[in-house]
């Protein structure tokens, strides 16, 4: 079973978390073009190797985390809080 070390709650079972997909910058909704939205929504990296992604600790602190995970081995090398207003929660 894969374990994720939540910043707030400590080492927890992956079944407590919800997968949030690849962490990527969202285009500015005020000025993004259709092409930029398409790239954001559909052009996945889907790497076979290290990837940075979002996980939501649904059965814990209910905060988003940014996790660096290897997609071939499921090894996790870093967990951090997301940048921006989400980090502290509100």
């Amino acid at each position, binding site marked *: *079973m894969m374990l994720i070390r939540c910043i707030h709650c400590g080492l927890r079972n992956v079944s407590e978390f919800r997968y949030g997909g690849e962490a990527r910058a969202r285009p500015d909704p005020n000025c993004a073009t259709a092409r930029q939205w*398409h790239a954001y*929504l*559909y*052009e*996945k990296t889907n790497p076979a190797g290290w990837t940075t992604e979002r996980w939501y600790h649904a059965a814990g602190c209910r905060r988003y985390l940014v996790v660096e995970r290897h*997609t071939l*081995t499921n090894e996790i090398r870093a967990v951090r809080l997301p940048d921006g207003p989400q980090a502290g929660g509100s």
Partner: protein
Amino acid sequence: MSSDVPKKSSRRLSRKRIPKARYSALGLLRRGITGKSWPPLWRQHELAKSYNVVIVGGGVHGLALAYYLGRNHGIHDVAVLEQSYIGSGGSGRNTAIIRSNYLTPEGVRFYERSVKLYESLADDLNFNVMFAQRGHLTLAHSDASLRTMRWRAEVNKIVGVDSEVIGPMEIGRLAPFLDVSTETRYPILGALYHPPGGIIRHDAVNWGLARGADAFGAEIHQDTKVQGIEVESGRVTGVVTNRGRISTPIVVNCTAGWCTLIADMAGVRLPISTSPLQAAVTEPVKFFLDPVVVSGSLHVYVSQTDRGELVFGASVDPFASYSTRGSLAFTEELAGHVLDLMPALSKIRVLRQWAGLCDMTPDFSPIMGPTPVEGFYVDVGWGTYGYKAGPVSGEQMAALIATHETPDLIAPFGYDRFAEGRLLGEKGAAAVGH
């Protein structure tokens, strides 16, 4: 054939249909008496410097494409490149269920053609693929899923596919070991019954198609890994492999699990994320389960093979990964759900479990057709429904490559549908149930 497919060299022109030892009862008897060994199903070749068509991926899709290119369109100068052995990926890991009871009219028409091709495939290939149309039950445990079953049944009937919603009494008659009482945690309210659905021997399909493709002149190269795709001014010119370089005007990505990595080599980004799907098989027991039983709500599907083993499959793991290791959490959850459905199985032992990689698209429909790179075609994004569609994808992609016109049957599944907002939502019929 247009100018994009260059005329073959004289060496290749002579290579049309290669005669094969025909399988028959008489042939079996004769070889039994004489002790003469059978010829190999397909030959081995040195990698040539060029091919008209290079197919990446030696699974059911790639082999079917090679077969139909030769059979229907006279294109024989074809190489199938497989990084391991044929059928080592999804084509040997799926749970071998064939059905056409989908949700969208586009999907139902496409998979119905596939069922029809599977029905005649053994005759066509002279190879027993053991297709057993024993019926397919998709259980509904809630009003919402019962409504989806009714929806699917009506769409199926309009397209001409045999599907009907049936009640618990009839479900109990078709599958006597199912608990259809109201005393369970998730009572069975009804089911979508699809009589033409069934199971097949997937290895036999792979081998039969490989033998058929070989007979039409295609070269099957195992242990041949694609390391790069050469693109010059927007069109494909060649493929780099661990066994050397090949020049070719046409590359078809027929891989599963690795399709985004292959597409990246040609500079094409796909809206796909890859997740494993775990399956398991039990010890063989006396035959008791005729139809395939699927429960979307319980994330499980069960069928009994001709050998008597029960094959279980689950839904895809809930995060992207290329890891094909099984997990205890999966086995526990699966066992619990199987026992919810069939309490009599409490003593049966699981022999082994495995995982296959599923390329999930946002709308649970595949991606078939040309890409922005000229000569680079995709037949990818097969999620959890690729095996059902092997022959039809090969047939339709072969028509596309030979005629340069997208056949109506696969037009809704084009690469450009995401940019154009024409998504084809098949989640209601493809997310869990197979």
